[in-house]
């Protein structure tokens, strides 16, 4: 369609913002050029192949498990006649609020040799030592994959469920009239049609997995992130670390682009989603099995961990922790607030730029600004220091030349660095949410204000923003929660005397003392629940 406006200032700011958001990645790429090959050949001959293999294996297992959990549960919820569906429908979203490292810690605690499960088993069967019986070891690659999948599958569930629910019911009626059973129709019509949504969610899961740092570290599964850390902090070779990071980012970008390419033009949305769907009738046994599957996901992904946390909190919390908690909590809220606000503002600016402007390349700022999602927090923090450090120096030198006192590290040494990193990392989430909101506005609404004598600014403030309000809120909350959970970027970029809930919990976890931080962990989870509840409400209404 034809876009309306060509606002020069808007155009300029869109491109500048997009550039600023990928600047850290560019700096990283440039920095990797000077990498020495010597360290590489050492790494390649020793540990890198297995790190790489671990990375790929982990990604493979997490995606596979998340697809299995997510697609199956979404199918059960939308297509079958199991009971308590109305509850399971939103309960299945809850694991999204759990940071993976938290779940990992809680389950290790639970299933370790000294944990209650094995203790009980030992007392039942009168086993004495670990050699008397076999019990699975959770601190392994499959264990890490399971933990990640348990908290990431809701992405798959959410998008697949959405796709299945928005399919045109007449397609199934047609399929039934053509002689297929409800079950056959599901496999030959519904599932193939949901493929694009499933692919999107799988790529989300993949990116989250590759960006994970705390879980794999806790489970001592060495991945590419470990290698980056080692080269940077162990061998002190930033250039080589940049190269590894660039490789990781390129892998992710490749996957993302492949995914986008594969689903270009295959979108399906119905105008008649409200028609009553015909459910697959399961036998009692099957219903039981299906319910068990869904409930076990809910229990293991959310209910059990939160109960464990609450027990810990009750046992270990005292009043002195509370004041510290309030302080760190405020810090978390503060950075998440700024990050979410900035990300949403940028998403609106770029999203509406793409929608309303005549520029032939108007999609580019939006696409480019989302790249940061694929960059693990550690890598991002590293890139951020490399980007903001020199910038600060330049500013200080300029300040001195002009006769002012040097302002110090106003960019890399302040909250700016953290907020910037969070915005770079989570812009994609805001962009995606806002863009999907914008596409739902009929194009004619862009034109109508102009035909009534209202200019661009009026049109945006009086039409687009009010219509987008729920979307904006949702995008804001999603970024807010992700920012609350984000760990590595925060760890490395903190200014003085600054702890957040996640950094505190991480430190306690790495000293095997999560009990002390249980309250904070519960707080993160509670905040994580907010957008889920809202998301669900929104979905119900539409």
């Amino acid at each position, binding site marked *: 369609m034809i876009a309306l406006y060509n606002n020069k200032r808007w155009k300029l700011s869109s491109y500048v913002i997009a550039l600023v958001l990928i600047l850290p990645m560019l700096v990283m790429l440039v920095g990797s050029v000077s990498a020495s090959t010597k360290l590489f050949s050492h790494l390649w001959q*020793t*540990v890198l192949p297995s790190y790489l293999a671990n990375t790929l294996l982990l990604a493979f297992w997490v995606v596979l498990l998340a697809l299995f959990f997510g697609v199956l549960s979404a199918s059960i919820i939308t297509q079958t006649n199991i009971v308590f569906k109305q509850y399971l429908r939103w309960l299945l979203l809850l694991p999204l609020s759990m940071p993976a490292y938290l779940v990992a810690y809680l389950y290790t605690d639970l299933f370790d040799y000294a944990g209650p499960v094995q203790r009980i088993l030992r007392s039942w069967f009168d086993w004495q030592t670990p050699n008397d019986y076999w019990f699975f070891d959770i601190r392994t690659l499959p264990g890490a994959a399971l933990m990640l999948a348990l908290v990431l599958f809701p992405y798959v569930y959410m998008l697949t469920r959405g796709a299945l629910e928005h399919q045109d019911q007449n397609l199934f009626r047609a399929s039934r009239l053509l002689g297929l059973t409800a079950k056959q129709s599901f496999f030959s019509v519904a599932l193939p049609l949901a493929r694009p949504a499933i692919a999107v969610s799988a790529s989300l899961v993949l990116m989250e997995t590759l960006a994970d740092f705390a879980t794999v570290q806790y489970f001592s599964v060495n991945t590419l992130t470990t290698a980056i850390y080692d080269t*940077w902090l162990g061998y002190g070779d930033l250039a080589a670390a940049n190269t590894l990071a660039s490789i990781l980012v390129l892998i992710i970008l490749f996957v993302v682009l492949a995914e986008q390419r594969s689903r270009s033009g295959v979108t399906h949305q119905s105008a008649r989603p409200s028609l009553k769907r015909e459910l697959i009738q399961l036998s009692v046994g099957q219903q039981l099995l299906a319910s068990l599957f869904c409930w076990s996901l809910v229990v293991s992904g959310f209910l059990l961990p939160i109960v464990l946390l609450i027990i810990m909190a009750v046992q270990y919390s005292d009043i002195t922790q509370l004041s510290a908690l309030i302080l760190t909590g405020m810090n978390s809220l503060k950075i998440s607030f700024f990050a979410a*606000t900035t990300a949403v503002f940028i998403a609106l600016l770029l999203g509406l730029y793409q929608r309303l402007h005549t520029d032939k390349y108007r999609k580019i700022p939006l696409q480019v600004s989302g790249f940061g999602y694929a960059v693990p927090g550690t890598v991002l923090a*590293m890139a951020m220091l490399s980007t903001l450090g020199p910038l600060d120096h330049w500013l200080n030198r300029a300040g001195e030349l002009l006769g002012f006192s040097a302002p*110090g590290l*106003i960019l890399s040494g302040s909250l700016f660095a953290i907020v910037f990193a969070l915005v770079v990392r989570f812009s994609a989430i805001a962009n995606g949410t806002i863009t999907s909101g914008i596409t739902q506005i009929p194009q004619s609404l862009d034109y109508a204000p102009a035909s009534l004598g209202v200019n661009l600014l009026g049109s945006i403030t009086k039409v687009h923003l009010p219509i987008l309000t729920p979307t904006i809120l949702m995008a804001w909350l999603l970024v807010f929660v992700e920012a609350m959970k984000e760990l590595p970027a925060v760890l*490395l970029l903190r200014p*003085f005397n600054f702890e957040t809930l996640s950094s505190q919990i991480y430190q306690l976890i790495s000293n095997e003392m999560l009990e002390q931080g249980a309250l904070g962990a519960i707080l993160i989870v509670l905040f994580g629940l907010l957008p889920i509840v809202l998301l669900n409400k929104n979905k119900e209404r539409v």
Partner: protein
Amino acid sequence: MLRKAFITMCVSLFCLITFSSSASEMVNVYSYRQPFLVEPLFEQFTKQSGVKVNVVFAKKGMAERLAREGKYSPADILLTTDISRLIELRDKDLVQPVNSSILSHAIPTQYQAQDNTWFALTTRVRNIYSAKRLGRIDLNYEDLADEKYKGRVCTRSGKHPYNVALVASMVSEHGEAYTLNWLKKVKKNLARKPQGSDRGQVQAIHQKLCDISLGNSYYFGKMLNDKKQKVWADEVYINFPNQNNRGAHINISGVAMAKYAPNAKNAQALMEFLVSKPAQELYAKTNMEYPVREDVAVSKLVASWGNYNVDDLALEEIAKHRKTALKLLDQAQFDL
């Protein structure tokens, strides 16, 4: 309108951050040491001197951050948990010498740099913990490679600075080839892949997953004082290795002044405070460490573990072999 509001918000935020921290008397610390270990000391210092202490803590990357920040870094003082880190800071020209008679008199010469660029605050032994069920045993680090411990050894990641330093001391003592071979054999003896913290290894002994583990001395004291972890610690003996030969490997926690320290005077005051008797006593009492001052006694609990001989290998030697140690760990695929 929205844009304007947003810009004002951002600007005011930056002002808040940058200028709120520029209060008059203060000292800025980049710390590898965990906050709960050093915060009581800082509180004491502030009470005494009126100088506010600002801290950023991270287990990793503080030195890299300092390097990136360069000339304009706000950091005055770096606290590390490991000698290698201190030497690295000096080699990268990120620290400055501090000429203080208080420091040089309080600290034994082997625990401070000849050029006054770094100073130790406490020492810690890399102990070997053994399960009480084995009875009292006498161990050398070399024994960890002994085949009779196959499947019975636990440790945290080989790449952790504490272990790297131990490996570096092995390189210095026995040479590269021996050390690589030793690492490979230890690796074969591991009950499980290196993981977790030093405390986690003791927990594993408690869980009967393994019988011996590597760990720093003060963790033992810390665990005995934690209601959940006491049961783990009760399962093990703390052993001082190599008592019949070169002595136990020790490492230090130390301090250095950043090259561009903006509050050098306060920084020096803090450093001097940290080696003062009251501070050293606090280190000994609450952190269960060995104070670097010879005239300050260790805590009762630590004293109960007995006296021990120390490997008198120069600390700088350990730092020198650090990168070799890292490469050997990779070659032995120790963490895989």
